[in-house]
């Protein structure tokens, strides 16, 4: 027994010491490192997003034989939505192939912040589709970070605009009371400066109510909200916090028709976990439409799931799964764009960065790719790493998400002004000289 103990200790020690990542990726492919999460409080959200992401990569390999003949390969590393694990995963996937991991989607504002300094040093672009540091829209200060499609400030001003429309015009906002119920993390704090600016501009009262991570207990917050009697509640949550908010709102009798979520608070996972009825009438902003009525989804069902290469069939067509598909498509198109300049071979992160910065996906291209109206058009430039800024509202009808508005943009000029101010302050702190990168 004693000898066995010693042996086990020695084995454990040896095991730890030999733990080294083995570069196992096929050469000649375009490698994509994926920092995913399917475990932990945000696991269900991550599972939907990353299943969609990988399904699309599979589709490109199956249907088109890769990007212009360059096959895709990838590896997913589990971060559990945890910053330190995310960093470990980043370091792990970055060395897998000589050309680097194409582009990283951190899928977490916290991990994005941890990578902000590392990505430029490693020359790996970060695509933070609808999250992350908002002022990274200014590509002159953040050449390696791409908050594509739309950012939190665009979303927040979009929500204000949406509320104004429901109330009957921007002048009707005066004197209204709006609560921001937010996840108490960098993610939840991101919209606050712009909402405060909006409150000042339109004359509504803003109350900030934080919910600690992960957010499965909100009694006191909703008690506060009930006492305050707001006209609208903006929900800025993620994972279990959203369902809890909807359930608790039902319990305290706050009308769900007066609640608007941001795009991380508006998926089937949230509404169904709260109980479909509890969520009926709830609005949420979205970067992409839900549903299966898109040719690309049909292709994935036929060519990926039909060949047994897909993930969980139940996820197809959900908000987050579609978002994963769109995120993968944008990555693939960025590589395709970069191939136009650097040749049809596996590209480095630096070359892909150029591809993202020169990305131009118009409606014709979207139709050709089978996305139709799923996402807005996208045109990226050095000064505008957002590329769209559009957002669309959906409403939960008790069974599914239905569009409740057209693509609309928030207060573009206010967002731009604050982005430039914030980016300039960052540049000053860090000693960065704002400039466009030469491709």
């Amino acid at each position, binding site marked *: 027994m004693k000898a066995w103990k010693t042996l086990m200790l020695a084995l454990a020690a040896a095991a730890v010491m030999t733990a080294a*990542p*083995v570069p*196992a990726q096929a050469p000649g492919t375009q490698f994509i490192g994926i920092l995913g999460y*399917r475990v932990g409080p945000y696991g269900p959200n991550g599972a939907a997003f990353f299943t969609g992401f990988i399904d699309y990569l599979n589709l490109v390999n199956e249907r088109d034989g890769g990007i212009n003949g360059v096959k895709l390969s990838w590896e997913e590393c589990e971060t559990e939505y945890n910053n330190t694990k995310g960093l470990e995963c980043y370091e792990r996937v970055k060395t897998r192939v000589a050309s680097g991991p194409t582009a990283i989607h951190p899928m977490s504002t916290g991990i994005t912040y941890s990578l902000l300094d590392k990505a430029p040093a490693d020359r790996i672009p970060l695509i933070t589709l609808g999250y992350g540091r908002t002022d990274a829209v200014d590509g002159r200060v953040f050449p390696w970070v791409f908050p594509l499609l739309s950012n939190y400030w665009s979303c927040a001003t979009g929500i204000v605009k949406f509320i104004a429309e429901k109330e009957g015009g921007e002048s009707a906002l005066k004197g209204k009371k709006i609560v921001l119920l937010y996840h108490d993390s960098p993610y939840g704090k991101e919209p606050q400066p712009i909402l405060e600016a909006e409150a000042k501009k339109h004359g509504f009262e803003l109350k900030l109510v934080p919910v600690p991570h992960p957010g499965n207990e909100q009694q006191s917050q909703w008690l506060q909200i009930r006492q305050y009697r707001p006209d609208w509640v903006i929900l800025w949550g993620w994972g279990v916090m959203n369902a809890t908010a909807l359930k608790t709102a039902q319990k305290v009798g706050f009308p769900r028709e007066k609640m608007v979520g941001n795009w991380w608070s508006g998926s089937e996972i949230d509404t169904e976990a709260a109980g479909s009825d509890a969520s009926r009438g709830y609005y949420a902003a979205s970067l992409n439409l839900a549903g299966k009525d898109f040719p690309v989804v049909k292709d994935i069902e036929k060519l990926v799931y039909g060949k047994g290469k897909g993930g969980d069939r139940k996820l197809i067509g959900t908000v987050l799964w579609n978002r994963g598909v769109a995120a993968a498509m944008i990555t693939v198109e960025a590589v395709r764009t970069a191939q136009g300049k650097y040749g049809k071979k596996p590209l480095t992160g630096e070359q892909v960065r150029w591809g993202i910065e020169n990305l131009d996906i118009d409606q014709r291209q979207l139709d050709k790719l089978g996305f139709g109206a799923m996402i807005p058009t996208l045109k990226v430039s050095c000064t505008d790493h957002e590329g769209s800024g559009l957002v669309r509202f959906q409403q939960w009808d008790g069974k599914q998400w239905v569009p409740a508005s057209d693509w609309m943009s928030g207060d573009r000029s206010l967002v731009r002004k604050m982005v430039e101010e914030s980016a300039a302050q960052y540049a000053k702190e860090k000693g960065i000289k704002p400039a466009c990168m030469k491709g």
Partner: protein
Amino acid sequence: MFYREAGQFKASYAEDQALFPIRQDRIGFIALLVIAFAVVPGIASDYWLTAILIPFLIISLAALGLNILTGYAGQLSLGSAAFMAVGAFAAYNIELRLPWMPALASFALGGLAAALIGIAFGLPSLRIKGFYLAVATLAAQFFIPWLLTKVGWFSNYSPSGVITTQPVQIMGFVFDSPARKYLLVLAIAVVLALAAKNLVRSGIGRAWMAVRDMDVAAEVIGIPIVRTKLLAFAVSSFYCGVAGALYAFAYLGSVDPDGFNLDLSFRILFMIIIGGMGSILGSFLGAAFITLLPIFLDILLTEGALAFNLNLEAGVTSMAQLVVFGALIIFFLIVEPHGLARLWQIAKEKLRLWPFPY
């Protein structure tokens, strides 16, 4: 064979009280240092340095801090991560407000700030002990991150509450590459670990142990309880504070107060339980077990699934990893409740009589 001490006679008090009285230990330790300082930076990849060795050393320092408090002085605490946060934010603010401050000094001042806060939160230990004290130190764990979030000054009014650390520069030498950061962290960890080793052998350490074993008896023999307990809190928090500063400056580069959550405190507590309470080596072994084993299991399971052509979802391997990790914790605690350090001690005793131990 390896640990036979025949012929090693101690002829003076100095030799008897040496840090490593056995020659093999001395040689082993020096060899380890040489490898860590000279060989590792040359051969280890960036992944090893930034994702494994640096966090391991930093978290070992935090575990060492808690071990001083809990293992040696017997005061149970759940506030280690909060003290790390104090260290990180204090060092950041010192660098921000006093740009001329050398990096090492700001780390030390970050540790001192944590020590002061540690004394404040150690005050309840004068009245309560054991689990009750652990719950009282939870207050630090809730209060400090809340305060750092609430008061914008601490994060220089960053809208998201995240701080981005300044480059680490010592006498004009910038620690920017993984190997340099590793060497910096290693040097600090070695110095502080040796200091801790000496501290626990000194009168102060003996007073701590007396208080741990029975505080009434300690008081009777003339040990000042108040000073001893508060000193334990101060020293422990200092170590945690330095670890926190390094965590921010040499590892993550940007931290938010929520990164130093209760979860991290628990992990540090588990490290010293598994590594060995009241043991310097145990802090390092426990940190290795808790931080490195999951990474290793993850890689092993992922590669294993690839090798056997199992099409597992990434989520499944992560779940399996948690199961195996949990099982290993139970296994180790059943086999050796006194921790990995005790296992090493037993192994050493056996090697003394090798090949016929009893």
